[in-house]
């Protein structure tokens, strides 16, 4: 006789037909409202990601998408435009007409401004209609795909229009969630102001701050690598690690986004968010559970433990660079100041290197060398742990130089993990040589996972904030970065480096001063 598993007596025990199925988490039907629905991100990333969720059966029936923007258009025109974009930008090709037709029935458009209340009244009407027609039950996910300057007016007007339900009322009125994209401010002051505006309307539990790096499979795998294996964690500390390097190298320039990048620079574009997120995953303690608060509690402790770099130390422990003309892939490329919409006297940094310290029990005295830049030699994001030298040269100088072991975690491209260690060269003499043990995800798991946006939108629909930045994390990151930005303003031009190189000489000097060198990527 097989085991009996009848329907449980209490209705709140969940769906018994889901028990044991491969897909155990499907979001509740909701209306995804995209502010900035006419924008590039909506076309290239958001709608393709939502459509891909529908193809992969993760988009609940009834879930709907309401595009909101200033330009006037009908639902039909919006559907037609989005169909074209999805066909072009979805990773799943060709477009499946049968899936699209049902998916498109859930696409609505609402025209309105971001400032005045009129548009929000129309939006409320539209959402009520969606609830009736599609069974979305008051569940709303507001996705702000607009410049940060619009965040304030939008959240204020959403609140005023009665479109934000309290967390306590979720069971009766449906959930309300807000998804926002970086930049979360431009320094500590503006980040605090933005957070204050958001928190006036939304509870922190309702806010999902997207850092698309956290949606990458290999970034998530950092946690698995560290906390699902017993052998690495005992080595993961000042006892054995000499230093850590984290590199976020891009080979492209500003690619037509000169005016955006002039205000951002590498610090705001990459270091304050992506790089510090990766750092916190590398350096964090084991969380008590794999849930949003437990993971983020540990991450924020790392960022708070970063030793502030102040005063004259800024010039000693950080390097700013800006790419000059050079060559990439055999072709000459212009310098940053020659890029469109960039000032010919721009002081915006396109490269940052930092010698950081995480002042806590685990990492005391271990330097974290961080670097991020554009127009570098190749596109690589990598974390490497460089272990200490062996305490005694047992095999003597004739055996060769005993290199310290290096564990490297490649986040993109060619995701994988490699361990460099010493080995004896076969033969009668005792000659040592470093070798690499290499694991590549692409070889072991051929199928690429979902794109970062698919994963993150799904998680926000599910209400799981583990892969999103929390307010205190963002604030701690700005607390660390803002003094650097302020000091740099007084330091004049960034150090130039040739496009296609590995960055300015000052970055090499930064690590050479400690007897180290940047890992060749």
């Amino acid at each position, binding site marked *: 006789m097989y085991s*009996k598993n009848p329907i449980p007596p209490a209705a709140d025990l969940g769906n018994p037909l889901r028990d044991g*199925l491969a897909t155990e988490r499907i979001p509740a039907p909701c209306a995804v409202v995209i502010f900035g629905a006419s924008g590039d991100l909506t076309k290239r990333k958001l709608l393709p990601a939502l459509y891909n969720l529908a193809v992969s059966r993760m988009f609940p*029936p009834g879930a709907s998408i309401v595009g909101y923007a200033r330009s006037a258009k009908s639902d039909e025109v919006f559907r037609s435009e989005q169909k074209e974009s999805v066909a072009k930008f979805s990773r799943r090709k060709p477009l499946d007409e049968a899936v699209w037709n*049902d998916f498109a029935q859930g696409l609505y458009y609402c025209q309105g401004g971001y400032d005045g209340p009129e548009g929000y009244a129309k939006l409320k009407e539209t959402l009520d209609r969606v609830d009736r027609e599609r069974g979305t039950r008051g569940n709303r996910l507001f996705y702000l795909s607009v410049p940060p300057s619009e965040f304030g007016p939008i959240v204020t007007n959403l609140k005023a229009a009665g479109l934000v339900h309290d967390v306590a009322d979720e069971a009766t009125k449906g959930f309300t969630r807000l998804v926002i994209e970086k930049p979360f401010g431009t320094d500590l002051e503006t980040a605090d102001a933005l957070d204050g505006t958001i928190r006036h309307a939304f509870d922190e539990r309702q806010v999902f701050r997207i850092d698309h790096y956290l949606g990458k499979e290999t970034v998530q795998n950092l946690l698995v690598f560290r906390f699902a294996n017993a052998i690495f964690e005992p080595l993961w500390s000042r006892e054995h690690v000499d230093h850590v390097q984290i590199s976020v190298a891009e080979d492209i320039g500003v690619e037509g986004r000169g005016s955006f990048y002039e205000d951002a620079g590498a610090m705001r574009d990459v270091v304050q968010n992506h790089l510090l997120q990766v750092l916190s995953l590398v350096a964090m303690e084991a969380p008590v559970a794999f849930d949003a608060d437990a993971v983020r509690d540990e991450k924020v402790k790392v960022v708070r433990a970063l030793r502030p770099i102040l005063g004259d130390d800024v010039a000693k422990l950080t390097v700013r660079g800006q790419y000059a003309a050079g060559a990439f892939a055999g072709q000459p490329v212009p310098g940053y100041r020659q890029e469109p919409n960039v000032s010919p006297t721009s002081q915006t940094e396109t490269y940052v290197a930092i010698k950081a310290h995480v002042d806590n029990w685990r990492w005391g005295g271990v330097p974290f060398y961080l670097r991020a830049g554009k127009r570098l030699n190749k596109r690589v994001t990598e974390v490497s742990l460089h272990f200490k030298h062996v305490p005694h040269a047992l095999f003597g100088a004739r055996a060769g130089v005993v290199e310290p072991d290096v564990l490297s975690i490649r986040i993109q491209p060619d995701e994988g993990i490699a361990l460099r260690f010493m080995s004896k060269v076969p033969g009668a003499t005792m000659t040592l040589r470093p070798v690499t043990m290499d694991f590549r995800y692409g*070889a072991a798991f051929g199928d690429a996972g979902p794109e970062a946006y698919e994963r993150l939108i799904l998680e926000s629909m599910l209400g799981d904030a583990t892969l999103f930045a929390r307010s205190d994390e963002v604030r701690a990151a700005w607390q660390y970065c803002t003094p650097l930005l302020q000091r740099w303003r007084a330091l004049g031009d960034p150090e130039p480096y040739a496009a296609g190189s590995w960055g300015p000489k000052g970055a090499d000097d930064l690590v050479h001063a400690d007897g180290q060198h940047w890992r060749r990527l």
Partner: protein
Amino acid sequence: MNQRVALDRIEHELSVLWGERTPTRTMTLAALCETPAHAEVALKALAHAAPRHGVRTLVVEWQDQHDGTPKIDAEVSLYQGPRGPCAEGVRLFAVGDARTFVPESVARLLAPDLPTLVWWVGDLPDHDVLLDRVASIARASVAAVDANVMDLRDLAVLDRLSKTARHVALADFCWHRLRTWQELLARFFDLPEPLEDLRSPRTLKVRFQRRARDPEPLSNQAALFIGWLMTRFGLTHAKWGEPGKARLSGPTAELLLEVVPEQVEGVADGALLAVELHAGPGCYAVKRAVEDPFVICWEGERPGVPFPNQCVRSHVLDDGTLLERVLLRPVRDPLYEASLAAAATLVADIAPKARG
């Protein structure tokens, strides 16, 4: 044609093929093939699945030859992925009585300390110690089978195997084919009102593709699906009445079942065509679209609850794709085993009698 190598040269030959590249191994898959035709099936499926999981594959086939010395020899090769070689392939040829050496030969080729999956290609034998021996040597192993290519009576064989073979967990391609149907039906009951309806199931109608040759009263795939629902509703007994109709009952629920064999062009034998569950005041249906049988649609009716239509694409699931899914989580699946047991109970009175 690759050159034949002796068993004790296989590891060396593989390392020569890898050259300076680092071998990738995440598990071993041993495909046991009774005939060259089965070996071709296995090779085709593995060509799809192995590169996606970095699997060392061992395809074992045997030939009855009584005029020669029993022997096993091998061919070795590497699977090519988009970025070059990515997995190892070993093909073993057992001649004559060497079939009895297969388990030991497989054992020496298992990637150390990594999971092993044993795939008996084709119809599962009623009694063959080879599968059990290979599974035992492989320790924690998963046997991949396909109930859909078997007779209805084989559900009982599989059920017995799942209960008696301590070392073997079954991974059934047929079960994996049901995933879309299960998920689409399950999602009705994510909503609170339909969830309440599960307390009062009334009727279940299941349409399935009739086998062109030797049609049976129910397909294994349909039986597994119904078995799955029986476990969900706590239904433990099946009493068949007029043809195609049964009363399913359990301690807390009862359900009238109707099964309807049909033929739809392009659909594989035994596959589900439509499922319609009446529970409480609701009617919950998952069915293939008329214009395209590979589009599966979700349609519900219940007072006060809107159910927007939703369609998903159901691709033809060949052995390679199914094997790839099995390799993703090669572990014992209690839900499958419970559903298999329920399915075996369901068909006990309508399946043809055992062979021999």
